[in-house]
């Protein structure tokens, strides 16, 4: 029950979806729609599962007065701070319309927090380039050189640095060329390799040979 049923479900769903690609006829098209609809619903619940888990861990911290319990409390309170207006005071299904309290929280709290969080990466890129990015071998040197051309070629500074050169040697043209030819070739090789890797692991999953995702007993 615990291991066999999931393997059987996976196999049936997977094979049905493959068949429906080749055979667009009923019943396969209907089964495909059915499974994809279920997938969407389960995907939503999986996200809710993650949220409930987060709340449980945070509340646990607060109850047991673990280290950082105060911030656990802040997590729970901010959760309700957006959920309560979202459910009850933002006009039901139109909750995301500009002008609702939910939208206000989104605009003035969620956006600044999230975008600043990611803006910090700019600083970390700078510090990593200074402290850790070394031309330690030929490959890394090549990488840094290509990065150099692309970084300069993509911004107006590149234009002012190289505008005295004939057009086909200007940094912008060189960057375009790198992107369109060697970059695309390398990208394609990696892409094909990974694609075959995904095809083979999907095959393992459908045939029931890959069981790691089921986890232990």
């Amino acid at each position, binding site marked *: 029950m615990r291991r066999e049923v999931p393997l059987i479900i996976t196999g049936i769903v997977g094979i049905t979806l*493959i068949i429906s*690609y*080749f*055979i*667009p*006829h*009923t019943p396969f*098209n209907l089964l495909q729609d059915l499974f994809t609809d279920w997938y969407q619903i389960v995907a939503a619940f999986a996200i809710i599962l*993650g949220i409930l*888990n*987060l709340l449980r*861990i945070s509340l646990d911290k607060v109850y047991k007065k673990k280290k950082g319990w105060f911030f656990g409390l802040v997590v729970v309170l901010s959760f309700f701070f957006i959920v309560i207006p979202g459910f009850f005071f933002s006009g039901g299904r139109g909750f995301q319309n500009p002008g609702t309290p939910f939208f206000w929280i989104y605009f003035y709290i969620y956006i600044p927090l999230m975008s600043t*969080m*990611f803006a*910090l*990466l700019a600083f*970390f*890129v700078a*510090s*990593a380039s200074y*402290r*850790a*990015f*070394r031309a330690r071998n030929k*490959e*890394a040197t090549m*990488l*840094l050189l290509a*990065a150099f051309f692309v970084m300069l070629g993509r911004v107006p500074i590149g234009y002012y640095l190289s505008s005295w050169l004939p057009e086909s040697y200007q940094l912008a043209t060189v960057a375009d060329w790198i992107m369109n030819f060697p970059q695309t070739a390398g*990208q394609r090789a*990696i892409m*094909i*390799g*990974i694609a*075959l*890797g*995904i*095809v*083979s*692991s999907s*095959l*393992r999953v459908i045939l029931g*040979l*890959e069981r*790691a*995702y089921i*986890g*232990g007993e």
Partner: protein
Amino acid sequence: MKKIKSILFSFFLLLFLFNLSFPQESSDPRPPTEIKAFDTPNDNGHAITVIWKLSADDGKVKNNVVAYEILRSDSPEGEFEIRGMVPVGENLFEDKGAKEKKDKNYFPSHKNFYYKVRAKADKTFSESEVSKPAFAYGQWYHTGKTTVLAGVIVFSVFALAFINLAKKGKELYIRPLAGIEAVDEAIGRATEMGKPILYILGLGSAEMIATIASFTILSRVAKKTAEYQTPILVPCYDAVVMAVAQETVRAAYLEAGRPDFYKEENIFFVTSMQFAYVAGVNGIMLREKPATNFYLGKFYAESLILAETGSVAGSIQISGTDEIAQIPFFIAATDYTLIGEELYAASAYLGKEPVLLGTLKAQDWGKAVVIISLILGALAASFGFQFFLNLFRVQL
């Protein structure tokens, strides 16, 4: 003179009036011909394709056709209703309807329909003859996808054959990978220094291929650390991944004959918030100063922060991911990097499991097919043969 003037005047006036009335006097455009209706191929029914020969006035200045209207009826003499319109110059229309009976636009399969095409000029139009009857039906097989079917079958046969071979005990060669060769040395170094090893499985969930590959490598690394009695720390981002990791490490310690050495608290959950997780792991790196860091699995924006901290702390770092945008940071800041598919290969190389080895071999054979077709195809295309290109064309 006056007379001549007036004659001329009336002449021009007439000409002018004639000219004014000229456009209104236009005749109908010539009708489209050779109209044919047939079931739309490679679908589930509920659609008929109509083709015709353009009106002779299509694209002419005079009587210019502006559009074609497609009409349908269930009997040749019956009332025709408009089903659609296509712009001038087009000679194909797919009359598609809904498959649900209650839908307004329901299109029954297996029912005869008759079509005609109307060439529309500015104000007038003309109609073609009525087509022979046609009915829609569903196909059981999509003929345009034969290439894909061949691909799926060939790959599956490769995979099953090689898995079978591996199970029978045939040695399947896989070339050594630099990052993996360094594993033993890295563990040895940790033992000498008396410092722990840090193993990070990435941010992926348990069913992702990169994470699965990482579990296999973790199992080998853990076995080695059990033999050397070096502690291994595995901070996790995902609860399920943590559970699987604990099992993997416990099994590895058991296999190495040192179950007494296994410490469950060393494989622990940090948090599932990206940056909070990074902060946690960075703390561990700075406190414990691990001798070796492994970053294997799915990584996103956090890759460079981890790699930088580890590099500044002076650890040997071995990394690998299939997330292409993160690999550059790993290459620039860590000692060994497994690029994309190499990560999958490393797990097969270390795991020596027939299933993994077999499918990796199938991937290689797949690549061989790709490489050969590339060479032959590019040469053929250079000399103007299209044959090869058509082999890979997938009709949709």
